[in-house]
């Protein structure tokens, strides 16, 4: 099949997913339990992205939940800074700064 046609199909399914509840299905049509659960979408999805990004090494994709993985202490420090400051830039600064420092020291 023509690659452009495939790319177009990829675009249509992606857009349809994003349109789903925003445009096609009114959210009040969802069951009550589903609507309650939606309040926890943010911590659920974002944590599912965060944790593997911290525990698996970047290049090799190796599981490394201990020494030798500089991302772990950097992420923990960043979480502490996020808790105290509620600032995105301070969190990134603490996380990237400590990561670079630890990588440089290693």
């Amino acid at each position: 099949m023509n690659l452009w046609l495939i790319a177009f199909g990829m675009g249509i399914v992606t857009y349809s997913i994003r349109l789903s509840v925003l445009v096609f299905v009114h959210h009040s049509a969802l069951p009550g339990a589903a609507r309650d659960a939606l309040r926890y979408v943010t911590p659920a999805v974002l944590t599912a992205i965060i944790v593997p990004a911290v525990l698996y090494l970047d290049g090799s994709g190796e599981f490394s939940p201990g020494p030798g993985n500089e991302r772990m202490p950097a992420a923990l420090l960043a979480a502490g800074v996020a808790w105290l400051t509620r600032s995105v830039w301070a969190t990134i600064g603490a996380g990237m700064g400590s990561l670079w420092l630890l990588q440089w020291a290693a």
Partner: protein
Amino acid sequence: MPPSSRTSEFAAGVRAQLPLLLGVTPFGLAYGAYAVDAGISTGLAQAMSAVVFGGASQFVGARQMAGDVPGIVIVLTTLLVNSRHMLYSASLAPFVEHLDRRWRWALAYLLTDEAYATAVVRYRQPGPATNAHWFFLGTGLALWVDWQIATAFGVFLGKAVPDEWSLGFALPLTFIAIVIPLLRDRPAVAAAVVAGAIATIGFRWDYGTNVLVPALAGLAAAMLIASLAPGQGRDDAPEAA
């Protein structure tokens, strides 16, 4: 507190997206370079960033195209990889349902991980949200423009940022800054702990199920905890949700 003007909401949306761009830009560069390396034409590699506008699914799609995977399989894989966006669509729907159709179609097109993460923070803020859709538009467009430019640089110049800089780490760091303040009640903590644990086990699961399945398990855990301790987590419930 009077509602913020359209332009100040739009500008605040753009500003909220800036920290995420730090991590997204190297990702866009990497995608552009990877797609061309895999043998995708420069035109198609660039067009995918506008037509699909979903980083992970573009990587997987380019890999499958290069591997002569049948088109229908590529499209179905894309459906799975991006299915988590349905949760975003449902989560934001109550806040945009009063907007006319054109607005909702435009905002849906811009509904990525990064636009969702920043827009939902805006909608959780107390005070008037009369013009908050301009924030959503600003944060979504900022990401869109950055993604197109980063793709172009990756396509034509190759990966310009060395891996050793670890700039991609800025993305999970930003998500940490967004999630931590939300962990104020037990259901939210349960959602995060369960989703994070399952995502660790399922890191190698294919086709985007490595995010979708942990997220759904996290939602189930949150609902379970909320039903065991009624009243927990109700305090920050948005009016319309």
